[in-house]
C-alpha cells in the first residue's frame, strides 16, 4: 500500500470511529478533521497542532459550535442528555460534507499519484460554510491561513 493509501485508510477508519462516538449515522467533515488531528507524527497533524488544534482542542471547538448554534435559537444543550446505547455492528456511512471534503482533497491534486496526506486537510479546510469553518472561527483559528499552510505542505 502506498503511504497515501495507508494514511487515507487510517483517516477513514478513525473518521468512522469519531462518527460513532458522536452518535452520528454519517461520517461528516468534522469527523475527518478529528481523524486528521489524531494521526500523530504526520505533517497535517503538526500543522493543526501549530494552530492550537490538537485532537482535544478540535473536539472542544466542535462542541462549542454545537452549543453556539443551538443558543442562536434559544436552545441549551446543557441539560443532562442521557446517553443512548449504540448498535455495535452499525457502520456510519460517508455523509454529504465528508464526501465533499474528500472530493475536494482529490481534486486538489493534479494526478492521483501526487496525493499526499496534506491533500486531505486541504479538502476539509476548503469548506467556507458549515460546521468545520464555524467551529474554527469560534476557536479563533484563521481558516484561510491554515489552508495556506496546508497548501505549502503540498508544494514542499
Amino acid at each position, binding site marked *: 500500500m502506498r503511504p497515501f493509501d495507508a494514511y487515507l485508510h487510517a483517516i477513514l477508519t478513525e473518521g468512522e470511529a469519531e462518527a460513532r462516538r458522536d*452518535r*452520528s*449515522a454519517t461520517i461528516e467533515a468534522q469527523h475527518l478533521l478529528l481523524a486528521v488531528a489524531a494521526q500523530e507524527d504526520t505533517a497535517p497533524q503538526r500543522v493543526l497542532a501549530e494552530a492550537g488544534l490538537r485532537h482535544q482542542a478540535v473536539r472542544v471547538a466542535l462542541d462549542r*459550535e*454545537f452549543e453556539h*448554534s*443551538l443558543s*442562536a*435559537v*434559544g*436552545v441549551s*444543550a446543557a441539560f443532562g*442528555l*442521557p*446517553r*443512548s*446505547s*449504540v*448498535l*455495535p*455492528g*452499525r457502520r456510519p456511512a460517508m455523509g454529504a460534507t465528508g464526501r465533499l471534503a474528500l472530493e475536494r482533497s482529490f481534486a486538489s491534486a493534479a494526478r492521483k499519484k501526487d496525493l499526499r496526506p496534506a491533500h486531505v486537510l486541504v479538502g476539509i479546510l476548503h469548506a467556507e*460554510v*458549515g*460546521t468545520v469553518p*464555524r467551529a474554527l472561527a469560534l476557536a479563533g483559528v484563521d481558516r484561510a491561513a491554515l489552508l495556506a499552510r496546508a497548501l505549502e505542505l503540498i508544494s514542499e
Partner: protein
Amino acid sequence: MPVSEIPPPQEPGDALAAVVALRRLADQLEDAAVEEAMRAGWSWPQVAEALGVTRQAVHRKHAKRLIAAGVKLRRRSP
C-alpha cells in the same frame, strides 16, 4: 426566556447551523427517549404514537440497537 422573545438569527449561516444542531440534538434525544421508554416497559405502538410516527418507522429505526443493548422489548400494549 420564552421562545417568542428570542429574535431569529440574523445571519443565514447561523440559522442554517441552528437547523443542523437542532436535528442532531433531536436525534440524540430520540435515541435516548425511545430507549428509556422501552426500558420502562412501553410498547412499540405506544412509543410510535407518542412520537407521531408509524410503528414500523420507530421499529425500523430503533429495534436492532435496543435488542443489541439487551433491552427487554414488549410486544403488546397493556
